[in-house]
């Protein structure tokens, strides 16, 4: 992978917290790179520092040592070229769907009139055409998460960070949202870092799957998933898909199971 196409470069990144029982290392000397327009899934048990990694990349948490760069520049604080989707939709109930989508525009004081058009187009892309004047509580959980994805895309960020975005949804909705996310990604082609604790979800969505160990969080393997896109749900029944899932699961089993 040439240096020029690297969207994210993480080198020797560590994070430890001081607690009453001494130091806890959440993330230990992790290094990896993500290419421009690549979809990378990070999978690991709870407590493996996935969320710590995401917060450092988002610039809302400082690393203890090492560095993270986005398109060559050091991530030293919150940046305006990142879009984030959390596990819960984190919508503002007093804002309409469209106003929620335009939150990054309002915060960054960009031209609202111009971005309103962008917002409406994105809402149509995620299948929420006609819902722009509704309020979040009128929408189902899956629809709310679509609004959150739209909001993360509206200011055309260089990178999309997703922290278990479908973890709170039921299994059926979750599979459907995986297909939707793939469709949106194929259309917009952002660089995505997708955190999950579901191995099948990671293999289904990722071009690569980064496998992390629990406490201290460390990179255990970097699995390239070469399944052709667009992937349908049937891909989960193929031997290749099964082999990837089995391989990652074995990595965890060697380490003493998923916590």
């Amino acid at each position, binding site marked *: 992978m040439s240096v020029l196409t690297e969207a994210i470069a993480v080198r020797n990144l560590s994070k430890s917290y001081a607690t009453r029982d001494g130091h806890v290392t959440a993330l230990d000397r992790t290094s990896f790179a993500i290419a421009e327009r690549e979809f990378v899934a990070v999978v690991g048990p709870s407590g493996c520092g996935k969320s710590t990694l995401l*917060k450092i990349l*988002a*610039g*809302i948490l400082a690393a203890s040592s090492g560095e993270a760069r986005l398109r060559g520049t050091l991530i030293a*604080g*919150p*940046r*305006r070229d*990142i879009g*984030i989707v*959390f596990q*819960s939709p*984190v919508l*503002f*109930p*007093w*804002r309409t769907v469209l106003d929620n989508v335009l*939150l*990054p525009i*309002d*915060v*960054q004081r960009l031209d609202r009139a111009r971005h309103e058009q962008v917002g409406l187009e994105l809402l149509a892309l995620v299948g929420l055409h006609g819902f722009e004047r509704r*309020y979040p*509580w009128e929408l189902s959980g899956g629809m709310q998460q679509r609004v959150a994805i739209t909001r993360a895309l509206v200011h055309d960020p260089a990178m999309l960070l997703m922290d278990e975005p479908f973890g709170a949804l039921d299994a059926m909705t979750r599979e459907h949202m995986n297909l939707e996310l793939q469709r949106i990604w194929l259309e917009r082609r952002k660089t995505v870092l997708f955190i999950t604790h579901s191995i099948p979800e990671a293999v289904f969505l990722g071009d690569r799957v980064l496998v992390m160990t629990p406490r201290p969080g460390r990179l255990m393997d970097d699995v390239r998933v070469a399944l052709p896109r667009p992937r349908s749900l049937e891909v989960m029944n193929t031997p290749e898909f099964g082999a990837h899932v089995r391989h990652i699961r074995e990595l965890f089993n060697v380490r003493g199971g998923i916590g």
Partner: protein
Amino acid sequence: MRNTRNVVLTIVLFVLSIGAWEGVVRGFDIPSFILPPPSQVGVALYRGFASGLYMQHLGYTLLETLLGFVVGSLLGFFLGTAVAMNRYVEFFFYPYIVMFQSLPKVALAPLIVVWFGLGLTSKVINAALVAFFPLLVNTMVGLKSADEDRVSLMRSLAASDHQIFWMLRLPNALPFVMAGLDVAMIFALIGAIVAEFVGAQRGIGMLIQSMNFNMDVSGQFSLLLVLSVVGLILNRCIGLIRRRVMFWDPSEKQVLETSPEEAAPVAAGRGVAATAKEGARS
């Protein structure tokens, strides 16, 4: 239908209990300075309003209440904001707030009347003092209760503290502030009436006091009726404002959608406001 049947039942029950009251008082020959029959209360009510006496005093008490409510709520809101947003203000003010909170504020009424006289000022101050705390506490709690994820989201967008306050913390505090206003309105009325008891030349509280000296019990009953209606109206006014301000809160929609399926989350939403209200009462 079920609804009309309930209305009819309510009216029948009301008429029956008033009739029973009248019957008991007349049947057992209870003296009217102990418990007047409803008919006498009705006559007192009519005379009070017909002579213009009640309206004049009621206007005065309402003026005290509303001024006290506005002054107390504004002060409570701004100090609550200062305490929630600035750790130094919190550090220096919080001990006093806790101390004053455990004090029954109406116990200060005699002092306030001594300091500020028998006129309007002492009543407004007393009403404001009682209305102040629900706003102070609820504003503090509301501003501090902004969801961590929402704050993280704002920070990740590189929002300034200023933006986080105006775009997130303040709207998030609104349900709490409205619950505080709800309580403060009634508290202000209590504060005004108690201060009038202590010493006043006008007002419903003063009128009740003087009727008590004259053993005019039916007059007192008629004024209690007036006060409860006034309290109800004031409460409704706050409710109207709340529905306007919090149009986005699903718990405000319960008046429009009353199907049982939707009643459950509505009740849960109410619970938050109720908890805030309880906090304010203490």
